[in-house]
């Protein structure tokens, strides 16, 4: 197998992983610190993409991304203050269904505002031409996404490990009582975390919008993947979310790219053609089941006991 193909697929996998990480990071924090299962997380991702697509024709792509992040953080903050905070003390079941309801509502509201058809969002002109890498050309825009993802990852690492807010976050994720004991005002902290998660979602939505599609319900499939990442990584752990994203992203890409070829080498093409896609699409769920089987709390559980 040619090396440049492997390299290109690896880049694809990493690019997908990093976007998944943006979603999973917010999800795992909200999960870990507030103990909230948030199915509406994917809706914030959708809103981020729609806002970017709305602003981009007027102010250009990059300013639009910034505006979309701010806008989505604002929406996320408002959502937290009005509805989400009523759910923290409720059962997970209530949370699942309430946020499921929010998801239905968000889909319809977006459809009312922007219509039922996908809307256009293109990569910025400056990144629309491919870049020559050793051995092959690669989409400049995907390279930009990788860089942005790594940058945000590093920023999050700094935020969580080196700042006071980060200390509260870690404390909250490992022991909820401790945050209270440290005298942190829980309300604003939670609003902040939720808004931060919304901002990360919006960034992912904005960056993936040009690659995927800005359409109603766009956040639902990727949300499930983000949940898989969070569970594999261990709830509440940013590091876990990062490693989990890489595992899931690269496995998914490799499965799609190489599995059919391998199967063709092993079996006849007919069989490979029908089993390849099936195996590739369930690979990550098999991974998750395997991880949970051996480590029922994920790879890097943030909370020791209980």
């Amino acid at each position, binding site marked *: 197998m040619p090396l440049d193909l492997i390299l290109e697929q690896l880049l694809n996998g990493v690019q997908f992983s990093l976007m998944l990480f943006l979603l999973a990071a917010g999800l795992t924090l909200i999960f870990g610190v507030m103990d909230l*299962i948030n199915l509406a997380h994917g809706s914030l991702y959708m809103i981020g993409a729609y806002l970017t697509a709305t602003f981009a024709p007027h102010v250009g792509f990059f300013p639009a991304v910034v505006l979309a992040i701010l806008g989505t953080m604002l929406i996320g903050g408002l959502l937290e203050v009005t509805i989400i905070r009523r759910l923290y003390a409720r059962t997970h079941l209530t949370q699942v269904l309430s946020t499921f309801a929010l998801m239905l509502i968000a889909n319809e509201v977006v459809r009312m505002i922007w219509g039922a058809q996908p809307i256009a969002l293109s990569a910025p002109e400056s990144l629309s031409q491919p870049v020559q890498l050793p051995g092959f050309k690669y989409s400049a825009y995907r390279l930009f996404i990788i860089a942005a993802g790594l940058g945000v990852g590093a920023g999050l690492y700094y935020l969580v490990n080196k700042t006071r807010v980060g200390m509260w976050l870690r404390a909250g994720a490992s022991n909820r009582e401790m945050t209270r004991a440290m005298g942190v005002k829980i309300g604003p902290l939670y609003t902040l975390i939720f808004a931060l998660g919304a901002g990360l979602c919006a960034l992912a939505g904005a960056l993936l919008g040009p690659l995927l599609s800005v359409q109603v319900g766009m956040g639902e499939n990727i949300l499930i993947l983000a949940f898989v990442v969070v569970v594999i990584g261990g709830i509440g752990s940013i590091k876990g979310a990062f490693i989990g994203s890489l595992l899931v992203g690269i496995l998914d890409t490799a499965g799609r790219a190489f599995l059919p070829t391998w199967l063709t080498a092993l079996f006849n093409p007919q069989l490979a053609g*029908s089993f390849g896609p099936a195996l590739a699409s369930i690979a990550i769920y098999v991974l998750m089941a395997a991880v949970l089987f051996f480590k029922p709390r994920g790879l890097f559980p943030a909370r020791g006991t209980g």
Partner: protein
Amino acid sequence: MKRLLPFLLLALGLALPFILTAMGQEYYISFASRVLVVALAASALNLILGYGGLVSFGHAAYFGAGAYTAALLAGKGAGLPAQLLVGTGVAALLAFVFGWAALRTRGVYFIMITLALAQMLYYLAVSSDSLGGEDGLRISRAALWGDLTLGDDRAMYYTALTALTLGLFVIWRVVHSRFGEVVQAARDNETRTAALGYPVRRYQLVNFVIGGALAGLAGVLMTQISGFTNPSLLSWQQSGQFMMMVILGGVGTFWAGLLGTAVLLGLEEYLGEVTERWPLFVGLILLGVMLFAPKGLGSLGTLFGRKKKEVVE
């Protein structure tokens, strides 16, 4: 009155096709069949979720497993009894395997792993040729006797009514048996139940399998209503809808499945007539119920009264 309720409902169920016919609303007979079958699956989830306290987010897997098994069998020319038997059996087996894996975990991890396992099945169905891929499998309706098939609305309706009645009877017996007592005890206080000497997981697994089997039975009948089966039966949105029904109906109360299904499907049917934006209203109603009447439309829910607890040893 409370003792009479099941019989009144059954009488109403038996009479419904005649009432609808008299009103000139025959179309709603097949709608009613759908409500009955989905209610059976929702009631099965209520056994797991309401009585067992296990938040299974992958109930569609067992429903779909029953449906796909029946469709595959129908394709091979098997009759209704074989479809019902094998479909239920396969769903039970699947529930055993998935339940065994999932019950190693607790809380959110349980929710997520049940979801992931069901997703696995969904993608398997979508991408497997022998399961018809995205298109699913089409069947011809099973024969009952003579020329009568389940393609006949009334025949289908009474078959569904029979299945739901039997299913609810089974659930009633199970819930009130020694076994049901332990399952509910494990829901209310898992640690204490283990400390009383009950191997909790074993009971939860058996309960999970019973719920899965009944969902499978409902799945078999669903293929007969639709005339086909497709991956959306296995989707996580379908699982979410089952949960919605149980919650709206009042989780852990006996009639939750039937009430929730009737309300939700009725709402969909009604709102669908009035507005294209019906999911918005379903979402608002669900959110309202969750925030302000979390015990569901029935009023005797038990899961919500308590705060969630994390056992700190």
